[in-house]
Each structure stands twice: as C-alpha cells, then as structure tokens.
C-alpha cells in the first residue's frame, strides 16, 4: 500500500479524453478573426552572397499585406546560447544553408502568400559549399562565419585525473571510433504559430513550442519589445523532442508581420521545412580509448569527438559539452580526458534532441565496454556491475549521483529477459545484448546566465468550492506533465486529483524554463509542491484560529480535514457554510470537515487563498569551465537488454524484444513513466536501425519526408517490457526524477551488442541498415579468408 493518496499511481491523463475525441486544440486548429497567412522565402542555395533582394513584385500582388526582409527585421543576433548568438531573423549578407530564411510575406490566404514569395527576386553570388567536417576544416576552406575561423563553432578540452598516467597502469587499452548519423526528431506535428499584436502594443504569440519562456525572451530581444508586452501561449503541442526548445524563424516572422499589419498572422512549416530547419541530433564521430585492469576495473577514458554542426550554433555549445561530460558515470572512472569540436558547415543547424549530446557517445562506449569484457572473458553484466557507482558517489567531473538504482536496473533486466538462459546459448543469427545509461534530471543552469528561478508556480483556491487552480508556465508537450503536476499539487495539498484544475504553457503564469533536459518533473514539480504546501498552510492557519486547534494537529487528506484530537467541534463552521449555500443539494451534513468548507472559511477570513512556489537548484558541483553542462540536481538511469534476429543473407535485423528498467526516483504517474520509457526505446531503435537525414552534393535534404526518412512503424517495434525501479531521490519532489531522456541511452548500444552476439561482427557506424549489416558480414568473411 502506497503511503501516498494521489501520486505513485496510474492516473488517467487529463488531456487525453480531448485528444481521443479530436477536441484538443493544436496550433493549426486555431484561427483568429481577420487572420493573415504568412510564408517564408528560404534559400535554395547552401552558400551564397546575397547581392540584391527585390520585393516590389511581391508587394504589388493583390492580397499581400506585408513583405519583410532583414531591412525591416533588423540585424539583432540571436540564437540559443548568448555565448553564440550567430543568427539574425533574416539573412542580410549571405545564406548559409538550403532553407536559410531571407524574407517573409503576410497575405490574405496561404496561396497568395506562397505566390508572393515566388515573386521576390533575389540575386545570389554562389560561394563554395562545405558539407562535411573534413571539408569545413580543410586548409583554406570557405568560412561560414567570419567570427569563427576554421569553421570551429566551439571546442572543449578537459581532463579530470591523469589519463596518460593511468594508461601506464592498464592491462588492456582499447580504441574504437564510432559514428551515428544526423537525425530528425520526426514529431508528427510540424511547427506552427499565430502572432497577434494589439492596439496597445501587446504581442501574443501562440506557438507549438516546448519553451514559452525562452521564446518570449527571444521575441522581445530580437523585435525590441518590452518583455512585459510579450506573451507566449502554448496550445497542445504535437511533441518536440528538443527541436521546439528554442525560438524559431516562424515565430519571429509571424510576430514581425503581425506588428507590421496589425492583424493576427499564422505561419506553419510543411514537412519538408521541418527537415530543412533541422536542429535535431548532430552527427557525432567519437574516438574513445579506454584503459582497464585485468579484473575489469575501469581506469581511464580518452575521448575525442567531432560534431557535424551545420550552419548555426543552436544548442551546439551545450551539445559538445554533453558529449563529453555524460560519460563521467554511471561507472567509477577516475581519469577522463575529452577533446570535443563542433564544426560549422553548409547544412541546417543541428541542435538538441532527446538524450542531448549523450546518445552516440553512450552507444560508442557501451559497445566498447562489451568488447573489453569479451577480451577479458568477463560477462558484460559482471564488468558493468564491477565498476558501477552507488548512490552518493560523485563522478570525476563532479556529477553527484544523489540516487542511483543502476544495479537494481541491471538485475531487473537480467531477470526480466531471462538473460542467463539466453546469453551464449542462442543459435547463430540470434543475439542478446545489454547496455546502461544515465541522464540529467534538469540542466543545472538556465540557457542564459541568470539567477532566475527555474520555475515559479501559483496555486489559487477558488473562492468557493475548494478547487485548487494551478498556474504554471511549464510545457505539456505530450509527456504528461500537466497530469504529473496536478497529481503533485493534489498530494501536497491533501486533496483529490479531481479537485485540481491546472493551466500551463503561458508566460503570464510565471517563469518556467520549459520542457527540455528532462527538467520539469523535478524542477517544476518542486515549485508545484511548494505552492501547494503554502496553500495548505494558509487554509490550516485559518482553521487553527477558528477552531482553536494547533496547525500541527490537523491534516488534509482526500479533500477531508483530519484532527488528531477526537471531538473537535466544527459545527459552527459547517453551519456557516451551509447557510451560505442554501438550496444546494450537496451540502455536507455529517462526517468529517471537508476541504471545500475549510477553503471557504479561509477565504471568508483572509480573502483569496493564493500559494506560491519556486525552484532553483542548490549549488551544484564543478568549478571548471563547462561544468554548467552536465551538472544536475539528480540523475535518472537505466539498463536495457535487446534481443535480435539477423538475416545474415540480407542483413535485415528484427528486434524481437527489449527489456527496459529505469530508475525514475519515485514514479508520480506510473503509466506516464512507462510511456516515456517505451517512447524512448522506439526513438533509439529508429536511430539504431533506420534513421539518417541525407543530403545531395548541393546541401539539399534528399529525404525530407516521412517516407524516405524512416522512423519505426508499429511493425518495426518489438514488445517492450518496462520495469520501473524506484529510488528515493533526495533532491526530487516526493523523491522523483527524470525518465524522458535517460531511457533512450542504452537502446542503441544494447542493439549493437545484440547484433554482435548474433553475427559475431562489430559495426561502428549507424544506422544498421540491411546493407550496412550485410556488408559488414561480407567484410568479416573476406577477412577470415585472407
């Protein structure tokens, strides 16, 4: 029996009945009176100087209300991290990738807007195009941004301990190089927004975003508006996975066009534009050298990584840091050296995507650990358990594993998959493999340097009726955060879930950094809990005075007031309440004092009952440069076991089953935790087997659709067995921490290790398409013959 009345259960999500019946409103379902439609002119060339832009024909087209270019938008630089603001709303001197934004049009309908875009004349002077890391770093390569010579967007160099000295003591040193491919998040709802500027100079932006707060700041900064005049509202969002975690040109263009025209302006990306905008997972090339003792003890990791960044920074600085820092755990690793480089080239920018920066690194290393285990004749599980950290351990780069159910996760998947009965006993063509991983439970610092709270929450009781209204600017993007926070509020306040109403995703409700870095459950959750406790205290204080009972001797549970003493006489309060509600058929008659009555009395005594909550992390470890990326109040972790069948004649892989255990601290909504685990596995499986954004030699995406960019269908997904391992995270609300991203970490390496188990060939490049697997098998056969 749970000690909780609301959390740690399977709650039906409050948004899903509307989503099941088609009533839930997403951005493209909205329209406003007099709304105009916007369209973007985007560069057809990957690298070119803009010689001349002539918008006159477009402006003269009937139905066109505004045409804007850099001349109208200004040249204020923006981006994700203030350290690398390298974008302007519209290109002014040159274009840097196919899809770079040049102009925007607002017109009476979409057809007219698109036609107007086609009438804008741009004269380009083509520049040499660089599409790969190698070309971009070559001597004399064309430079994308003058401020960044050599096309090096960012580089990181760090060393913890002394790697070379440690290698001298190692019995086995192993080096491998691994490469993933540029991914697309392939959320099903393309980005879209509606901007509406009113006569008082207030701008409201409705947008499919994960981060209303950051969008608000960027819009205000770029368009030079007082931030108090900018409101960002998020309707239901068809997922984001990191790509909707920063302001985009659609949002900025729509705002500018609305300001120019005084009308609401709607803009959407089509699917091709979603791919062209990019901002999803980078392509990483990792070279890792790991040194171990004969008994399997990990001593040192030397790691070099190159990130194929695309034309702008986006989240890239954080990405290049994460790619190194997230290998600090979950194994005891005393020495770690990292050199990371993020390189610009003429492709769409890459950014943050589920498992930010850590997924390919984890895949590379966990496969290498299996290779080491094999050479040392230690089982992969034993090697991992031998080196595993425990709760309270701190990594060499100062990440504090304040809770860590890693060992429990390994045992859970071992049992759940019947590993021992299968490992080493499967016929050729069938394989089983495992891997571990962990991830931050919220970035320790905001994207811009600030002492801001990461989340603020206001809970107000309805003046009558005892319903708690929760206002949070956090972003429900499909992960179930609204329900999670309603549950936390109900639990902390002591009322039933149905007595909570929650509104979210609106910058007018406060500050919340939004849905990224798996931060909301822990961070917003804390703020919700604090606000609920504040409300609870206020109600109890009034009751205390009215009934002359100390606050400490009262409790609220299940929307009822409990008293430690017997025979507390609250009949006076009840009589007052009932008198106020004459004619009502649901007045309390006998039984315990209800929260409804107590809340009404509190209002009558002191006015509206409003509680506030806030959260920012306590001081986190790490004083070195870059310590802000990777440090977090808590870390979620997981282990997975993949079982596969490989058709060795064709190279086709079938994933038969995935067993996944995740330590999410205390599970608030069990169903939602499982949902995040299953979704993570599916995204990892896609990246492992199918996904790659491909370009032609002119920098154009050649598979900018969901037919040729292949995400898993229902037929590709195996049964996923999820096992929740609960720890009690000391820094989490009710002990809760992340699940949304950590759960993707082990999927790719578990599949890689299972494929090796099936065919006896190691593959160090993704995706594992039939052709890549087949060719690897052929190569290995050739190798054996010679």
């Amino acid at each position, binding site marked *: 029996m749970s000690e909780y009345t609301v959390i740690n259960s399977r709650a039906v999500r409050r948004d899903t009945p509307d989503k099941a019946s088609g009533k839930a409103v997403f951005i493209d379902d909205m329209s406003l009176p007099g709304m105009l439609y916007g369209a973007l002119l985007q560069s057809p060339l990957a690298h070119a100087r803009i010689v001349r832009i002539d918008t006159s024909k477009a402006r003269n087209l009937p139905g066109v209300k505004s045409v804007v270019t850099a001349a109208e938008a200004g040249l204020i630089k923006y981006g994700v991290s203030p350290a690398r603001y390298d974008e302007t709303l519209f290109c002014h001197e040159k274009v840097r990738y196919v899809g770079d934004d040049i102009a925007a049009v607002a017109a009476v309908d979409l057809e007219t807007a698109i036609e107007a875009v086609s009438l804008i004349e741009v004269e380009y002077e083509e520049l040499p195009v660089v599409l790969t890391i190698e070309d971009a770093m070559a001597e004399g390569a064309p430079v994308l941004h003058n401020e960044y010579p050599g096309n090096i967007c960012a580089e990181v160099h760090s060393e913890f301990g002394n790697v070379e000295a440690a290698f001298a003591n190692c019995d086995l040193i192993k080096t491998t190089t691994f490469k993933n491919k540029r991914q697309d998040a392939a959320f099903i709802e393309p980005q879209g927004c509606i901007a509406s500027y009113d006569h008082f100079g207030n701008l409201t932006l409705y947008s499919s975003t994960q981060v209303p707060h950051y969008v608000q700041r960027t819009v205000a900064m770029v368009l030079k508006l007082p931030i108090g005049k900018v409101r960002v509202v998020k309707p239901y969002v068809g997922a984001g996975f990191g790509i909707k975690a920063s302001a985009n040109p659609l949002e900025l263009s729509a705002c500018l066009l609305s300001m120019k025209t005084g009308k609401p302006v709607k803009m959407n990306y089509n699917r091709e534009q979603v791919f062209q905008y990019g901002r999803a997972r980078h392509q990483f090339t990792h070279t890792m050298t790991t040194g171990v003792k004969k008994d399997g003890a990990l001593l040192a990791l030397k790691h070099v990584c190159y990130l194929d960044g695309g034309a702008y920074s986006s989240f890239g600085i954080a990405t290049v840091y994460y790619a190194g820092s997230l290998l600090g755990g979950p194994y005891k690793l005393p020495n770690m050296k990292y050199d990371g480089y993020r390189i610009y080239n003429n492709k769409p920018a890459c950014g943050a995507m589920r498992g930010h920066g850590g997924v390919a690194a984890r895949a590379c290393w966990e496969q290498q650990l299996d290779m080491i285990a094999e050479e040392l004749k230690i089982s992969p599980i034993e090697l991992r358990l031998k080196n595993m950290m425990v709760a309270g351990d701190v990594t060499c780069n100062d990440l504090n594993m304040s809770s860590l159910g890693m060992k429990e996760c390994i045992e859970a998947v071992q049992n759940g998959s019947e590993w021992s009965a299968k490992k080493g006993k499967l016929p050729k063509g069938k394989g089983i493999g495992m891997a571990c991983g962990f991830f931050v439970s919220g970035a320790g610092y905001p994207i811009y340097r600030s002492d801001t709270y990461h989340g603020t929450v206001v809970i107000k009781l309805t003046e009558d009726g005892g319903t708690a209204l929760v206002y949070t600017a956090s972003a429900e993007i499909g992960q179930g955060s609204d329900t999670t926070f309603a549950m936390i509020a109900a639990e902390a306040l002591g009322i039933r879930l149905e007595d909570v109403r929650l509104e979210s995703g609106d910058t007018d409700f406060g500050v919340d950094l939004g849905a990224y870095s798996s931060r909301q459950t822990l961070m917003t959750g804390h703020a919700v809990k604090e606000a609920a406790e504040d409300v609870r205290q206020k109600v109890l204080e009034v009751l205390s005075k009215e009934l002359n009972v100390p606050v400490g001797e009262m409790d609220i549970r299940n929307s009822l007031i409990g008293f430690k003493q017997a025979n507390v006489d609250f009949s006076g309060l009840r009589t007052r309440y009932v008198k106020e509600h004459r004619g009502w058929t649901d007045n309390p008659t006998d039984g315990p004092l209800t929260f409804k009555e107590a809340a009404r009395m509190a209002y009558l005594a002191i006015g509206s009952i409003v509680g506030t909550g806030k959260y920012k992390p306590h001081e986190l470890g790490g004083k070195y440069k870059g310590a802000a990326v990777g440090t977090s109040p808590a870390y979620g972790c997981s282990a997975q076991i993949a079982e596969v069948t490989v058709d060795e004649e*064709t190279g086709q892989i079938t994933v038969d089953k995935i067993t996944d255990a995740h330590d999410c601290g205390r599970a608030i909504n069990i169903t939602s935790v499982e949902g995040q685990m299953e979704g993570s596995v599916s995204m990892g499986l896609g990246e492992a087997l199918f996904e790659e954004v491909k370009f032609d030699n002119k920098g154009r995406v050649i598979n900018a659709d969901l037919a040729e960019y292949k995400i898993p*269908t229902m037929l590709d997904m195996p049964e996923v067995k999820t096992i929740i391992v609960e720890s009690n995270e000391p820094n989490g609300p009710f002990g809760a921490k992340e699940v949304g991203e950590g759960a993707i970490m082990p999927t790719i390496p578990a599949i890689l290790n299972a494929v090796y188990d099936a065919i006896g060939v190691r593959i160090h490049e993704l995706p594992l398409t039939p052709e890549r697997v087949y060719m690897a098998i052929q190569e290995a056969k050739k190798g054996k013959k010679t």
Partner: protein
Amino acid sequence: MLLPKFDFHEPKTVNEACQILAEYGAKARILAGGTDLMVNMKKKILSPQQLVSISRIPELKNLEASADHIRIGACFTVADLCESDAIQRHLSALAEGAKNLGTPLIRNLATIGGNIGSARPAADLPPPLMAYGAQAVLSSLSGERTVPLDQFFLGPGFTAMKPDEILTEIQVPALPASSGAGYINIGVRKAQDCNLVNVASFIALDAGGIIQNARIVMGCVGPIPLRARSAEKILIGQKPDTALFTRAGAAAGSDSTPIDDFRGTAAYKKDMVGVLTRRTLDIAFHKATHRQ
C-alpha cells in the same frame, strides 16, 4: 502543401473517359487511387491541366476469374487484391506484393492500374504480374489493344500507353497445374518502405518434375522491372533443387543493372537479387508441388 490548379473530370464510362483523353491528350492525367499522383502534384513534379478521375467507372473495379484468364479491373484496389480469395488462391505472389505495398491506408486507395501505370522501378505489383505473364489492356476511342507487361514499361514513369489511352484491365492467363510463383521485397523497415530490391519468380513443371518454363522479374535494379533471362535459361529443362536455384540466383544478379543511389549501392542490390531469386524460386517450387 497546395495542389496546383487543374480542371477535374469524372467520367462514368470508359468511353467517356477516352473522349476526354482524346480531347486533351498529354495535358490530361488519369487519377485512379491518387496515392502517387497527388504526391507528385504536391511536390510540383507534375502539374496536369486536366485531371481525369476514373474511380467512378464501375466496370474498372471488377475481378473476373474464368477458365483461361483472370481479369482484374484497373481500379481494383490493392487492399482488394490482399483480401480476394481468387487472387490468394491463383496468384499468391501478386497477393504477397499487394500486402507489402505502402500502408493499409495507402492500400485502401491505391489501385492495380495505378501501380502499373505510374511505372516506378521499385513498384511491388509489376514483378509478380510479369512473372505470371500478365498483359495490360489499353483502351482509346480507336479501340482496345493488349500489351504484355514485358513490353509495357519503357522507363521510370514511361510506358507504352499513348496519351489518349487508358489502362483498363490486367489480364493474367490461367496457369498450368504444376506451376507456382513467389515474391519477396526488401526494404529498410518492415512497413511503408520503398523497396531496395524486389523479385518475383515463376516456374512451371512438367509431369516429370522438370522445369518447363520460368520467369524471374527483378525490381529496383534497372529503369524498369527486368527479366533475369540468363537465370531463366539455367532453370529450364532442369530438375529443381537448391543448388540450381542458387546458380540461377547468381545469374540473376549478373542480369541485373542496379545503380548506386541514396537508398543503397549497386553491389548490395545485385547480391540481394541473388538471395531473393533463390528464395522466391524456393517458394515457387513449393507452390508448384503443393498446388491444388
């Protein structure tokens, strides 16, 4: 994604459709299931001025199995092919192709005529149909003619159809008793995939169990679905066994002319032709010896 502008025609008879085509010729395009054409029009690859929908011509939706032919109307949907007992019983390799085409949502719209008429080198239905020796029936105001599918495809998107003709029907000749066919396609994922390679094989045995006739058709490895002629030659007159099928597979690989593209290399496709040829021959042999 807005569609370009066009005039829309929805004839009720083949003759009416032929009249419209006679009037507009190459400016017109036939709309059947739309799963290919709508996409090409949205991408502005095609912008026909006249669109002639043939989905309200009842006779084009018929399936008729007689002693000497199975006749499939051009607007018979791919979903119908999957579900039809007659197709399953007589043309199982075609049913297999149909089951692997697109998605259930696409199969409910897409038609057999469209899958052939669009002449995509990776299409699922042409290889099994060619393996069964099917022919296309083309109608115009000047009458009807039949073209063996072997001669129907001219290049990606190009066929022997003239601008004023409509593909009205696919005819598959009744198959000899001891015959069978198999179809296998390979893609990257398990549904909704453009094929990397697809192969259909047909064999007919004589009373002594010797291969009397063989047709092997390879998709994705040439501008049109290709016959593996030298592989067929290897088979004819021989007693079927795995070694023979492996040799035929190797020959089929040599018969194929794939190119490197973003979906895969020519080398891989060639090797897969070999594997799929052997595997489809295994299926075909099994069917030939287990047919009712």
